């Protein structure tokens, strides 16, 4: 059995706590952003676009046996790093688990205060969209 959403979030919180300085957290998130696999250009269409005020996120989802698979990318690297963390939390999880999950790591790591100001980067919209996909697939599955 793979890690649950709760367990993954706990791991992220512990990892982020290892950095004393915000600087180091930024470095880490930028690294994650740079490493995030690129989304195929064919998926970068308006239908998959989550528009922030300043940067954009593209998100696609697919389902197999009740497990939801996500891929996403952003045009800004720090947002890409945060997207990478969100994917680590939500990717390849059962639809019900996603729907019922409580997103705590953004708060507990301080990321929401420093980086996830909602309107400018569309991250919270991405979380909503992830849950929306999970709901849509769970209805379809039933």
């Amino acid at each position: 059995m793979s890690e649950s959403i709760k367990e993954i979030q706990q791991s992220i919180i512990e990892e982020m706590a290892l950095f004393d300085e915000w600087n180091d957290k930024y470095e880490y998130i930028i690294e994650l952003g740079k490493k995030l696999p690129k989304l195929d250009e064919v998926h970068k269409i308006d239908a998959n676009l989550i528009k922030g005020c300043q940067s954009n996120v593209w998100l696609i989802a697919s389902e197999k046996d009740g497990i939801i698979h996500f891929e996403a990318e952003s045009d800004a690297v720090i947002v890409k790093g945060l997207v990478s963390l969100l994917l680590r939390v939500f990717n390849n999880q059962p639809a019900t688990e996603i729907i019922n999950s409580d997103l705590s790591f953004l708060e507990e790591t301080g990321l929401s205060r420093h980086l996830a100001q909602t309107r400018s980067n569309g991250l919270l919209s991405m979380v909503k969209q992830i849950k929306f996909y999970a709901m849509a697939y769970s209805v379809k599955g039933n």
Partner: protein
Amino acid sequence: MITDIKISSPFTEQQLADIRNQFPILERKVNGKQLVYFDNAATTQKPQSVITALDNYYKGYNANIHRGIHTLAEEATAKYEDTRKALQKFVNAEFEEEIIFTRGVTEGINLVSNTFGRKFINAGDEIIISTLEHHSNIVPWQMLCEEKGAILKVIPINDAGEIIWEEYIALLSEKTKLVSIVHASNALGTINPVEKIIEEAHKVGAKVLLDGAQSSSHIEIDVQALNVDFFVLSAHKLYGPTGIGMLYGKKELLEAMPPFHGGGEMIKEVTFAKTTYNELPYKFEAGTPNIADTIALNEAIQFVNTIGKSNIMAHENSLLQYATDELLKIEDLEIIGTAKDKVAVASFVIKNIHHQDLAYILDSEGVAIRTGHHCTQPLMQRLGLKGTSRASFAVYNTTQEIDTLIFAVQKAVRMLK
């Protein structure tokens, strides 16, 4: 402050320190670093005198104005009207009643489009704006054009961010009823040649509205010398409070225009059969106004007057020059907006670096800049950009702060590339 003297700021080190000391917020630490505030084109910080005026009003003489026959009401009314007189002098209007209080530039433009526009602009008439406009000087005219069947024309710009003069002249015709144009661009800093623009518009019988959001804290405004028909400004970009601004209009135009909002204060007599309207300026000031902020605005005007706009402009120009020189030393950095005449706005892009990423790193260093499209999406489309990073300077900024900006940008480039 050696560099300041070298590039000829009019202030001595002590004078600049005295100016900075009037702004309590500049003491603030952000993310453990000393705040460097370079988002002045969005809103300026407020001197203690403005903050004290707000406090004094609520503690000492809070009352509704133009109504009560009691001491507090009379004190508040007198102070409120003092600001109107101060604004009249500030823009050199001929008559006090030509100064209408609004919530800011956006409301001022909407007032003109809803009153002057509704009455005097008809199907087939043309309104001219420029590519430099922010959304506040685009959307109200689109709404009016849609309602009236009028046509919106846009003056194109060159790559430096200046309007193309011949194109403007070509757009003018007897169909032109209004030219509504920004005095200084918020996104690029470009100062438009407004004297000439107004003169040419008047030749075809068009009226001119100048959007002074970005100009009024830097450039001397003389509405009579400009012979401009409407001029709008926002107090909060002028060291004053948010939620208060000014519309100047020529008296004969304001008198010919219908009221904007209906309600108290703007009436002379109300019966259920018919209401007669109050005279200028009250015809356009329905309801209880923003008394506290209006009174505090007077302190902001006095702050600017005491230092003098020519000194403010000279200091800011020295900062702009220094910032531009230092920014251009950074690899792959391009300044966006290279007009000959600019207010103190340094807008830039760095190859392969997203402006939002840059802003995050700068914020972690305590440096506040603005990134994005600056509410000028059509301008960004013209320039082929998604956005820029913009450092905009005010009278209290220093060259040391620019050094901090440069250091932070260099650090961001290292981290992000």
